[in-house]
């Protein structure tokens, strides 16, 4: 075996604290090393060409590159090695940047450590074998989880490209949070006017199958061949018959049920159509408030329904589907702001969240577009907006900035002026974050043209006095405590991941952070991909962002999915387990532990043996660690290869 070792300088990132030349010279003394050198930038074009040239010149059969983390450039160098004619698995990397040069300044120690890591890589490479990927068919169908603006964009882009799309939305209608908005910043154009048509496109698009009021029950399989089980929740209304006429919603006697879509601003009936432009425009029954289910006696909606669509005995249905890729676009939810007892903790009716205020502003909302104080229904004159309620607050575990509250509060201040010309809006803020195109001009306009009074300081307390709400805040620019007698207080409540997002992440087998946001492949370079092949992210579920960014990510995720599913066959990862039938005694331990059920028992000439289903095996190596006689070995991470790395470090 003739091994080539290339020590990368990475500019000064590595060369700064590692003597690359001496590492190369030490490497040349290692067994089977035919050629060792150090190069300035291995991953750059000239670097790769130098490697290819060296392979040809010194007839190398294996390459070790000591540079940065394999998680970033292993694919790059594997392609390089392949271009030079070698099998891409006759290649190993030593991470001498993130694990050596960047974490210590001691030149001597770093150089010694780098040479030892190279020695480990060489000793592993000497046991590498050529691996050929097999290919398997791809299901050309995409699953989009979540029907918000990001999900809609992803679905439409993918469907327009000819891909078959399944969309699963938890609520009875798609549209997500954007559908609840009255206007959007910075252009203050009507939200349902720009979202409505896209929602209709989704409903009418031949390639898109929409499952509203449904959830993903379970996901199995692997990239290109996911088996998804979708639970269609019982809406107790047969949607094939329902025409969305809304007769039942008028006649329903239970008038006191919580209106989830309108954030509980006004009471509503048990059977509802969320909002006029809902897609699908079908009624659904909230079991919790429906008298038929609670007392067993009612049935008014069944009687009045012209098409007889009501069916109280409806059960959840399950639909199984095979899909090739999944886009998670589950969006966000407002955090539970009632932890702020000093703002009333939900006890004062006139302290509302920004979304509730948005529903009051909306013409299709419960108050028909008139801003009314929930306590007595009068029109408020002094409206106070409080920013950063549940954002940038370490004491309640929400240190991050939610990103879009400054902008929508400015918009709400403009709308308040439009709806109530003689009203005064006060905005308590810490810093105005308006980074987008035309954003800062928008926040300037609200202060200059619409006379919104911006006060730089947090609010310490809100308490009712008579009919008014006393807002006790501070103006740090003036350096004084300030008070405002307000009729209505709107809280710009911070956002967090949608409820149930961590649960979905476990089904998708992607990781998530402590706030429930999904973990992207790389924060800068792979924002819409995840570490699990075939699963993509779009919108606020990956990290809070406003509508333009969410739409952009929707398209990006669709593009990524199209790239994945454009090929008919996908190469399987050859780093999977393989059974040596001579050593296997059929003790079935590997079958017992395999998380993916990728090993089955076969009968070989009367002897029970284990066999790996290559397309299902993910290469975790659990079977390899469990098999007593080492009959099953994980290619590229066999026992011997790992043992070689350990032996390279042994002192005695």
């Amino acid at each position: 075996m003739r091994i080539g070792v290339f020590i990368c300088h990475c500019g000064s990132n590595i060369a700064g604290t590692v003597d690359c030349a001496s590492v190369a010279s030490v490497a040349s003394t290692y067994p089977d090393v035919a050629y060792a050198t150090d190069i300035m930038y291995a991953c750059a074009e000239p670097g790769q060409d130098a490697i290819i040239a060296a392979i040809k010149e010194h007839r190398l059969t294996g390459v070790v590159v000591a540079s940065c983390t394999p998680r970033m450039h292993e694919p790059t160098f594997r392609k390089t090695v392949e271009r030079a004619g070698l099998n891409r698995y006759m290649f190993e990397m030593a991470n001498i940047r993130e694990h050596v040069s960047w974490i210590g300044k001691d030149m001597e120690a770093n150089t010694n450590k780098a040479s030892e890591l190279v020695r480990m890589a060489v000793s592993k490479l000497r046991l590498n074998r050529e691996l050929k990927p097999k290919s398997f068919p791809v299901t050309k169908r995409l699953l989009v989880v979540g029907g918000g603006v990001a999900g809609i964009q992803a679905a439409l882009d993918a469907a327009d490209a000819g891909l078959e799309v399944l969309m699963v939305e938890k609520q009875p209608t798609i549209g997500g949070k954007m559908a609840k908005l009255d206007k959007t910043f910075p252009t203050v154009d009507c939200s349902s006017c720009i979202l409505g048509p896209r929602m209709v496109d989704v409903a009418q698009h031949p390639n898109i199958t929409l499952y509203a009021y449904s959830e993903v029950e379970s996901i199995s399989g692997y990239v290109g061949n996911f088996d998804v089980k979708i639970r269609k929740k019982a809406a107790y209304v047969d949607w094939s018959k329902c025409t969305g006429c809304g007769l039942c919603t008028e006649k329903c006697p239970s008038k006191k049920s919580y209106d989830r879509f309108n954030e509980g601003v006004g009471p509503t009936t048990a059977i509802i159509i969320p909002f006029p432009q809902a897609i699908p425009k079908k009624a659904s029954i909230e079991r919790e408030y429906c008298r038929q289910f609670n007392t067993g006696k009612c049935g008014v909606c069944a009687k009045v329904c012209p098409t007889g669509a009501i069916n109280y005995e409806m059960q959840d249905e399950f639909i199984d589907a095979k899909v090739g890729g999944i886009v998670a676009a589950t969006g966000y939810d407002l955090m539970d702001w009632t932890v702020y007892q000093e703002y009333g903790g939900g006890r004062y009716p006139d302290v509302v969240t920004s979304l509730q205020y948005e529903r009051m502003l909306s013409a299709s909302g419960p108050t028909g577009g008139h801003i009314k104080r929930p306590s007595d229904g009068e029109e408020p004159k002094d409206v106070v907006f409080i920013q950063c309620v549940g954002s940038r607050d370490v004491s309640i575990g929400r240190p991050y900035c939610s990103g879009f509250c400054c902008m929508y509060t400015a918009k709400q201040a403009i709308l308040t002026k439009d709806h109530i010309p003689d009203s005064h809006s006060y905005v308590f803020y810490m810093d105005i974050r308006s980074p987008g195109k035309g954003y800062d001009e928008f926040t300037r306009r609200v202060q200059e043209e619409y006379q919104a009074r911006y006060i730089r300081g947090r609010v310490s307390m809100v308490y009712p006095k008579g009919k008014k709400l006393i807002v006790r805040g501070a103006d740090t620019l003036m350096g004084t405590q300030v008070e405002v007698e307000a009729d209505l207080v709107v809280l710009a409540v911070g956002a967090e991941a949608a409820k149930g997002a961590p649960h979905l992440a476990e089904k998708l087998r992607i990781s998530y952070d402590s706030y429930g946001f999904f973990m992207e492949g790389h924060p800068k370079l792979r924002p819409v991909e995840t570490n699990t092949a075939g699963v993509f992210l779009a919108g606020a579920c990956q990290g809070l962002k406003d509508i333009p960014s969410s739409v952009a990510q929707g398209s990006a995720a669709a593009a990524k999915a199209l790239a994945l599913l454009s090929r008919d066959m996908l190469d399987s990862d050859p780093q999977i387990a393989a059974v040596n039938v001579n050593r296997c005694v059929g003790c079935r331990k590997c079958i017992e532990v395999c998380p993916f059920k990728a090993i089955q028992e076969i009968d070989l000439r009367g002897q029970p043996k284990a066999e790996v289903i290559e397309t299902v095996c993910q290469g975790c190596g659990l079977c390899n660690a469990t098999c007593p006689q080492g009959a099953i070995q994980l290619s590229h991470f066999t026992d011997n290869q790992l043992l070689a790395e350990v032996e390279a470090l042994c002192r005695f």
Partner: protein
Amino acid sequence: MSKATFGYFPGCSGLGTSLEYERSTRAVCRELGLTLWDIPDWNCCGSTPAHTVDPVLSSALSARVFAQGETAGIRDVVTPCPSCLSNLRNALEHMEDELFAARVEALTERPLEAGHSVKSVLQVIVEDIGLDKVKERVRRPLVGLRAVPYYGCLMTRPEKIMRFDDPENPQSLDLLLQALGAEVLPFPLKVDCCGGSLGIPVRESVPRLSGRILELAGELGADVIVVACPLCQMNLDLRQGQIRAKGLDYTVPVPYFTQLMAYAFGLGDEEAAFKLLAEDISPAFSCMQRRAGEIKAEEARVAALAAQKAAAKAGRTGSGQSQAKSAGAAGGEA
């Protein structure tokens, strides 16, 4: 020390301006079966002045209180006054740090064993005794009394050290007053500061801070503001005249919660010591009686109406058997 006996630290104001709190606390504790062993030769905990000078000094004074308690075998101490509670509790918490304990010992020159604890009387009543026991002892329920609970700013804060109820929206006093039968009005400023010990040196602080509390209570139509802290009581009750001189147009008596408990338990005037209050409480009680009467009349009217309706329904069905039943029911109700 069994669970129902505690070491008792009355606090200096108990001898003077909050005599009524002291007397009613002892009476109520005796009534609830709580034996209080006075800490022998207890000294002042230094209150706010000491800990504004130096926490080590206030901890040293508090350490002597615990040391005196040790001589009488007292480990668990209870005190009515939140200011003393704050000093004593802070002393115990901070002395867990070795250097701080050494600095305290440099002043007291009396080493202190571990295992001490200190609670407020309100906390013991609500948490250890329990409200149902309080309800059992109520003979004269305060039905018709509109009370506003006022906790003050020391009893529940800082949250990590006091560890009692919710620092922003405490409920224990509210529940206690409801157990006594009173109608408790939600009071948003229940943890706002009354001015504390600034009454004397900073003359304009109390009229402004306590004024705001009295004004809101007055606006809500409260008969009484119920307090649990001598400092707050002095600022709200004793100085109410001064505040009225500055423009407050309400008069709200400010009894201690233990006084109301003594009254509700049917104890004598001596124990309730209402006459020691600066603002006379009798108008509040007359309001209470009047409103209680109204409530009773209202209940009677509703009951009569219900009985009428039941009788009418029974008449319509006409069957003998149900008549007897509904008649019996109606009889029971009337």
